[in-house]
Structures are given as C-alpha cells and as structure tokens.
C-alpha cells in the first residue's frame, strides 16, 4: 500500500509510529480476553479464583476439561447441536440456492413480485407470538423440526447468492448449455452450484454459525431437556450459574473447592464450545470479504 518506505519525513515517521501503537492497542484489547480465557481454562482451579492467572496458565492442569468431560448435559447438548447444525445448514443452503437462482435470471417472469415478497419480510414481521402460535399449530413444538424449518432461509443470504449468480454466471453459458439440451434443473445442479464455490462457502459459514449459536428458538420451542442444543445448556451454566453439582467429578469436597471448579468449568466450556467454529473459520476467512462485499453491492 505504501508508495515509499525510505526517505520518510519526520511527520510521516511519527504517523507510522502512532498508527502502529493505535492498532496494537485495539489488537491487544481484542486479543487479551481471549488469551486470558484460554489460559484460565488450562490452569489450576485455585489459581484461577485466587487471581494468579494474568496471561499464561498457572500450574497447568486439565481439571476444567475433565469436569466438562464428565458433565453429561454438555455432551448431549453437543450432539444435538451437531445434528441441528448439519441438518439445518443443509436445508438452509439448499433453500437459498433454490430461491436465489430463479431470482438471478433475467427471463424469470414475476421476479419483481417475488423480490418484493422476499424483501418485505426483512422490514416487517408478524412478531414473536404469531410465530410461536404457528409453530404450535403445526405441532412442531418440542420436535427437531422446530429447530430446522422455521429458520429454513435468510433473505439476506438469498440476496447475496443471487447477486453472485448474476455477476459470475454469464448469459452465454446458459445459452450454450440450453443449446446442448441442458434444462434449468441440470444447469443449476451441474453448472451454477459448481461455479459458485466461494459464495456457497460463505453462506454455509453464515448459516452454520447462526445454527450453532442459536439459543432463543430452542428456548421457546423445546421443552425436553434431552433435546436441548449446546447453547441452551451453556445458558444455564454460564448465564444462570446453574451447575449441577452431581455432575462434577471427584469427592463431594468442600464448598470452596467446588466453587473454584465451577468457575474453571465455565472457562473450559467457553473454549470447548467455541472451538468448532474457530476450526472452520480460517479456511473460510478468505471468502468472508467477498461475501461482505457482495452483500453491500446493489443487486
């Protein structure tokens, strides 16, 4: 970006230094809490509560993670979340492509009308209670369907995918394919989907993150504990401080140690529950910018 490095004037040098300091301050303020949490999760429980941990793990131990391993609710939740996320995201991406492709075609008669129907839902909604009553009427309460169907599609992602299709699939390609006797179904499946890797990666990440992180729908639609997704289990533990002591391993020790272990359990849980996304994230990161850019273009 810089045009010349050498022969900088004094003010430019000053600017560079001030700028580097400024960025570093922001960098550290985002990074420090993350490092602290990870370090705390790998420390000894007493060290965490007594405030010995500042930056690196103190008296490293896996106590917190063992406690998480023994905490059955967490693993039921984890399993449920994986199921809801995979099934939900598959439905999401399918529905999005199904909606986005016709909307990207110039010769799709009624496109304006459909577009209006989609866009209007981003500006006006029936609200919480009518949605809840609908899900109840459909007998979806407390079923896996309530985690997948009501959020089957996000209009914003449809717009992103549509814009991408418009930009990257040339009309000539469609004409050529049609000459070869390719119908629209085949064209979507064999050509559009295969040419749209980057955008599918981005919307898959968006949907997967939304599904994985979702707690509110689960909270209002699910009653049975064994169906709770991870976030709902986390909510009880992290937010309501509602730890089932019976699920903590070890001797039914003194209250102080139990409290310390509870705290450590929380830090370990924060780390474990965030890992799945952080594993995927670096692979998709380079596409993120593309997704954001397309989202901001006018369609």
């Amino acid at each position, binding site marked *: *970006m*810089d045009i*010349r490095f050498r022969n900088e004037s004094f*003010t*430019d040098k000053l*600017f560079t230094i001030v700028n*580097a300091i400024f*960025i570093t301050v*922001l*960098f550290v*303020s*985002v990074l420090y*809490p993350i490092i*602290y*949490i990870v370090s705390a999760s790998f420390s000894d429980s007493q060290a965490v*509560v007594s405030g010995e*941990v*500042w930056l690196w793990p103190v008296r490293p131990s896996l106590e917190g993670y063992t406690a998480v391993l023994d905490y059955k609710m967490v693993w039921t939740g984890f399993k449920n979340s994986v199921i809801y996320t995979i099934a939900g995201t598959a439905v999401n991406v399918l529905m999005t492509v199904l909606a986005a*492709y*016709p*909307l990207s075609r110039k010769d*799709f*008669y009624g496109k*304006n009308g*459909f577009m*209006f*129907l989609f866009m209007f*839902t981003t500006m*006006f909604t*029936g*609200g*919480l*209670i*009518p949605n*809840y*009553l609908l899900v109840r009427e459909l007998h979806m309460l407390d079923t896996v369907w309530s985690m997948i169907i009501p959020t*089957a*599609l996000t209009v914003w992602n449809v717009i992103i995918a549509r814009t991408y299709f418009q930009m990257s699939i040339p009309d000539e390609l469609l004409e050529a394919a049609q000459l070869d006797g390719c119908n*629209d*179904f085949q064209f979507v499946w064999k050509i559009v989907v295969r040419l749209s890797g980057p955008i599918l990666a981005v919307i898959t990440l968006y949907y997967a993150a939304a599904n994985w992180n979702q*707690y509110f729908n689960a909270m209002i639609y699910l009653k049975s504990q064994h169906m709770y997704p991870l*976030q709902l289990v*986390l*909510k009880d533990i*992290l*937010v309501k401080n509602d730890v089932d002591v019976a699920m903590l391993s070890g001797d039914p020790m003194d209250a102080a140690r139990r409290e310390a272990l509870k*705290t450590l359990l929380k*830090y370990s*849980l*924060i780390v474990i*529950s*965030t890992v799945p*996304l*952080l594993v995927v994230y670096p692979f998709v*990161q380079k596409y*993120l*910018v593309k997704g954001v850019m397309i989202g*901001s273009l*006018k*369609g």
Partner: protein
Amino acid sequence: MSSVRQPERASHPDRPSPKKIIRAWQLYVLMALPFAYLIIFKYVPMYGAQIAFKNFIVTKGIWGSAWVGLDHFERFIHSYDFTRILGNTLLLSFYNLLAGFPFPILLALGLNYLRSRTYRKAVQMVTYAPHFISIVVIVGIVKELLDPRIGIVNKLLDFFGVAPINFMGEISMFSSIYVWSDVWQHAGFNCIIFIAALAAIDPALHEAAVVDGASKFRRMWHIDLPGIMPMAVILLILNTGHILDVGFEKVLLLQNPINLKASEIIDTYVYKVGLTAQVANYSYSTAIGLFKSVINLALLLAVNKLAQRTKQASLW
C-alpha cells in the same frame, strides 16, 4: 423499496411472451419450496398478528376471538412501563450506534497504513474472530470477566488501586456493558467493508498527493476518509432504520433483577408478557410487538428514501 425494482427496469421492455414463461416453468418449480416457506413462516404470522386487535382465546382460535380494536395498544401506551421501556430501547440503540460507528472506520484506516503485512493479517484474523462467538458465550465471558470477586477486570482495577465494582449489579453500568461488549465483538468484522472501500480508492490519487509532498496524515485525511465516507454515511443512515431492533437475545441474557430497570426493552417485554408470564397474554404481547414493527417499517422506508436522496448508491 423502489431500489429493489431498479435493476429490473432495463429488462422491462422485452416482457416475455406467455410461451417463454411456460418454457421457463422449471424456474417456478425451483422457487416453489422457498415460496411456500415464505408464505407459511413469514406471511401467515403477519396475518396472525391480527390478534393484536382481538382478545385472543386459544380455544376460540383467531377467527372466533372477539375484536377489541386498539384496546391493547392504548393499554400499552398508557401503562406505567411504557416510557421506561421505550426510553431504554432508544438509549441502548443510540448508544450502540454511536459507539459502534467510529471503531470499524478507525481500524480500517489504521490497518491500511500498517507496514507489516503479516501483522496486518494477524490483526484482521484476530479481530474478525469474535464475530462468530455465540451470544450465550459472549454473555458468559462478560459475566466471568466482570465478576466482582474473581473477574480479571476487577483484579486489574485492584492492581491500580481502584475499589472493586459490581458491574452486573449497577443499573448505570448496564448500557455500557451491553454496548462495549458489542463493539469488542463486532468492530473487526464491521471494518471489512471499509477495508474493501479503501482498496477501491484510485492509487493515482495517492501518487499525485505524494508528488505534491502530502504527508501520510494529510493523505489519510483528504483522500482515504472522503473515499470511505459515502459508505459510512449510508451504513449509518440505514442502521438508524433498525433503531428499535436492539439485539434482544443478548439483552435478555444480560438481564438480572437488579438491572431490570435499565435493561427492559420492548422485545424482552414482548417475550415476558407473551411467553413467560403466569397468565400469558398473547394479544397484548402481539400488540406491543406490532407497535414496534410498524414504527420500524416506517423508519426503514423513510431511511431508505433518505439514503437514496444522498445521491450515493443505496445498499440495494
């Protein structure tokens, strides 16, 4: 809304013949499922929102329940909670908008002048990441770090000789906790769009400025900042359209009996009246939600007009 129709204007003259429409029947088949979803899960609830004007009784159904006109709306507007809830919603929203506005821009400008590419990549990588952490975990982190006894923030304060603060137990702290944790989580991700806008600035402008002896600071001030301002203004305008849409899933989790005075917003109130109250009042809750939705819609339409009026391309 008119912005949505704009791109199609060009294709209007060659309106397809019925034959062409029929030939493209497969497109309608593709659209069938999403269309059904939209009608059932978006438009049916809108239709169901009419219970806001009724006294909805489950056994009687939507049609059987009696009309009561605007009773529920009047009850809400005259209720003791009304001013407080509306005030909290607006305060939280404006605070968030103002605090959240400068950081992505500053971060993008700063990153742009960073010499080391590796460092730049590292900063981007780390600052984008929190965006994907779940709300539950964010609130969990906030509560752990701000804990009056063992939280690191109070440890740091103690280190500097400041008496420990019970952050979650202070009514006045609530909005700041909500807003700054949001800035922490999203500033990095929100700067992506400005980085892209900066990359789109014509390098010739910078070259010319360097020839004229402009310092880096002046270049940033006179070239980069004006270059991304249109984008910033549009985003700001469009965000004001969502002024009543505070991230209520997060507020709900941050609430506790102590900070409720400052943390009760329209959406959390809707949730409580409709779904967790001893006697769930569907109609009243729907009316409050609808009250918000209607204001929101009006704001969004106004704001979209305004965004177009600024002569910069509207976002869609």
